[in-house]
């Protein structure tokens, strides 16, 4: 569905059911150069099991209009404005589920609206989420090459079963195509930026994680990939301690929603219980 946030169109996939603001709401927040479609299986499950769903496209990504926002903090404010626009305002009503960059946005939003956010699930996360200088430079100068680098770093297997979102899909090709589409998509009008470099820079520049963690009141779960080269599990120790989070390690690379969707669903169900 389309919403208006700060005067701009914002898109959210609702899991195949009409959005119902009266239900507990699961908000899915994608990572760098992605869109809502990385979440469709989980979103459909939640929407058909007692929740309302907002799997958002961040500003300038997918079907949401730009401009892109300059920081994790600014994007968290945008997210809270989107929830207000959707009518999600009851205490503890929102569960935020973020992947990678999206996990930092979820963390910051949970800190800014501790009463609203009852649960926070950070998938494929790390803090600080530093990006190597080489990758940042490549993302700026040759984003298509950087997409191939990230693709290789993000996916831990040549055979992600049973296939996302359906059998017969080639995860490497799907991720590459989605990143290329997001980079060059027609819906980023008004975003005359290199979206890849922008997203990575936002992750790299975020320094508010531990301050935010101190303000979070939500029940927090970290879901990490044992073979994640982008955000390795060891990079979450301080954050996990600060958040008093439950940590779940799954046999996956960084692309957990596509590599291990069943296992991630089990972890999410546990977090929602």
């Amino acid at each position, binding site marked *: 569905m389309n919403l208006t946030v700060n005067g701009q169109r914002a898109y959210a*996939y609702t899991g*195949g059911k009409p959005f119902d603001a009266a239900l507990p709401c699961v908000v899915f927040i994608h990572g760098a150069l992605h*869109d*809502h*479609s990385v979440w*469709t*299986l989980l979103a*459909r*499950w939640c929407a*058909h099991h007692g929740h309302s769903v907002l799997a958002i496209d961040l500003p300038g990504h*997918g*079907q949401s209009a730009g401009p892109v926002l300059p920081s994790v903090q600014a994007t968290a404010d945008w997210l809270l404005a989107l929830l207000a626009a959707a009518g999600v305002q009851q205490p503890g009503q929102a569960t935020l589920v973020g992947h990678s960059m999206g996990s930092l946005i979820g963390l910051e939003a949970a800190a800014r609206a501790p009463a609203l956010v009852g649960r926070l699930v950070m998938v494929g996360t790390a803090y600080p989420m530093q990006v190597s200088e080489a990758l940042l430079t490549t993302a700026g100068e040759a984003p298509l090459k950087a997409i*191939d*680098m990230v*693709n*290789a770093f993000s*996916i*831990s*297997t*040549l*055979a992600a*079963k*049973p*296939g*996302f*979102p*359906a*059998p*017969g*899909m*080639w995860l*490497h*090709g*799907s991720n590459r*195509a*989605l990143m*290329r*589409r997001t980079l060059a*998509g*027609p*819906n980023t009008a008004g975003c005359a930026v290199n979206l890849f470099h922008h997203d990575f820079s936002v992750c790299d520049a975020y320094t508010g994680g531990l301050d935010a963690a101190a303000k979070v009141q939500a029940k927090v779960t970290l879901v990490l990939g044992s073979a994640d*080269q982008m955000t390795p599990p060891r990079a979450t120790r301080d954050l996990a301690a600060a958040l008093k989070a439950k940590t779940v390690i799954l046999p996956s690379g960084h692309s957990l929603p596509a590599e291990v*969707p*069943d296992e991630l*669903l089990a972890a999410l169900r546990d977090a929602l219980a």
Partner: protein
Amino acid sequence: MPGYSDPGFDTLALHAGATPDPSTGARATPIHLSTSFVFQSSEHAASLFNMERSGHVYSRISNPTTAVLEERIAALEGGVGAIATASGQAALHLAIATLAGAGHHIVASSALYGGSHNLLDYTLRRFGISTSFVAPGDVDAWRAAIRPETRLLFGETLGNPGLDVLDIPTISAIAHDAGLPLLVDSTFTPPWLLKPFDHGADLVYHSATKFLSGHGTVVGGLLVDSGAFDWAAAFAKTGRFPELSAPYDGFHGMVFSEESTVGAFLLRARREGLRDFGACMSPHTAWLILQGIETLPLRMARHVENTRKVVQLLAAHPMVSRVGYPELDGHPSQALAQKLLPRGCGAVFSFDLKGSRSQGVAFIEALKVFSHLANVGDCRSLVIHPASTTHFRMDDAALARAGIGPGTIRLSIGLEDAADLIDDLKRALKVAEKAA
């Protein structure tokens, strides 16, 4: 899988989509000859049917062995995924049926495999889908043939019978300017030779019966999506492709382009076309094609090497008036071939004998290594004389209009010793000469 980019082609040909079987440790991909797959619980069943989980339910829709093949060809082509079908014809039909219906229109190259021409010009017309045929090299004709109701541009990477190289960059640009996708039949150019997506094609299909399998044992097709065409944007701009970007009553009101930004076409094709038309591939067939793909890089190199030697012989032979191989000087597609097919133009081509139909027949019957049959892309060398077989009802004038002469011979060069192929051809050419 550490590294800065995906593995190379030869590695993907062996490994993409497959790992040792988790339950048995089997290293080779097992053949899952099972129609159906047990649900873990009623809740699990419901979530599979409602697309809340990915998984296998019934082998007409998906199968673990077939899925390995689908992932592998997608990896080799640089696509997002694939659907295995009962034949190449079924793959073509699935692509068209997913995008077009009664009242719609296709612009297609006139240089097509006869079976594809039949489907477009006769059979689909009966179902309300019409086709305009254009010369593959006539760029203006492609553009001029597009109508508001057009849904697809379609051609073969190497056209039949002259091996005209399809100018994929130019034709795809024409398609995209009109908000349409380009589908190509890449059967004669497996991805070791050409990756059409790198040049702008949106959808690719193969008759996997040919080079991908390579052994002449099974019939199958593969339809691959690049994931690059933006169906939602096209729908928003022109209203075309509601099949992918408007709610589909036949599947929970699903909007496929919302479900998957880059996989919408394959989701619809699987959840409608494969489900309802049912032209699926047997897991046993998929397994055999996987065996072929494992050696595709090695075989294609040898196919091309042998073909170049045979082409060289024929081009210099006094009994031969024309050899239609794009690497040769004078072929109309030579420049395009150098650009798009630097590894070679495949192993199927035709040449013209100087002489009559009866000399063509004499040539065919004198061959001993080449097999006389109606197929291409086998590991064995094959030959056919169109004027006495596939096109025997046509008089010489009709043959000429189809680009076929009374002495036209089509060869598919296999993996035998090149010296044996050359000896076989030399002897048969001598027999044909004496039959004058």
